[in-house]
């Protein structure tokens, strides 16, 4: 599995405008909606579900990376998007550092294996410091896509 198998190309955000945790999540969910992944009527509920998950413990895994996520009935397959913030956003990460690279995952209710494999894929990819640095330097959707489509294939 590659990140490009579940990251929706048209929803990638190379330059986030949001400066808060909820703002980032909303901007990313809105972009998934705009890319046709679910109906407008589900948008607000998905934002709330992802925020509820954050209340149980931040998904900021350190080193400037966060993986906000939730299950939701609005999707029938796992979908994700990626967003970058040059300035960084406070996210209550385990190392208390601001987050620059976000991967948001929305999973169907009944496919835990897909969620676990996507999570593994993101964590594995983000262990590579040079990959993370290159991502952080990307300024266009195409640059981000090329990097995640070329990231190492399945382990």
């Amino acid at each position, binding site marked *: 599995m590659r990140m490009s198998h579940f990251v929706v190309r048209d929803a990638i955000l190379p330059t986030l405008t949001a400066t808060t945790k909820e703002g980032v999540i909303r901007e990313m969910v809105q972009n998934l909606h705009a890319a046709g992944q679910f109906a407008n009527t589900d948008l607000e509920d998905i934002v709330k579900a992802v925020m509820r998950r954050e209340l*149980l*413990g931040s*998904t900021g895994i350190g080193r400037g990376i966060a993986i906000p996520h939730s299950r939701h009935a609005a999707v029938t397959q796992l979908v994700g998007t990626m967003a970058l913030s040059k300035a960084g956003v406070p996210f209550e990460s385990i190392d208390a550092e601001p987050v620059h690279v976000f991967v948001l995952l929305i999973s169907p209710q009944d496919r*835990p294996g897909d969620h*676990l*494999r996507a*999570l*593994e894929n993101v*964590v594995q990819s983000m262990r590579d410091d040079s990959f993370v640095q290159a991502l952080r330097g990307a300024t266009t959707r195409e640059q981000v896509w090329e990097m995640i489509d070329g990231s190492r294939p399945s382990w």
Partner: protein
Amino acid sequence: MPANGPLRTTVVVANPNGLHMRPATAFAQTARTYRAAVTVYNGDRRADGKSSLDLILLIAEPGAELVLEVDGEDAGTAIEPLAALLAAVEAQ
């Protein structure tokens, strides 16, 4: 009673969502309270039990049979609570 060599037990993941980020984080937090080295195996995959990110790399699906290995002076105290956490069904 000090343990001699590593203690091992097999644990089946009962969580219907598998060992995802939240239970992995909870397990690693508890594992870090012991001095013993904690290692979790899922087939060929091996994780440092004190690292939540390492545990995510196990891809431990519901029903997976994991091997928990605890090695150190407090291994005898650590193994049961850690096995229970690994097997736990989280509150929904």
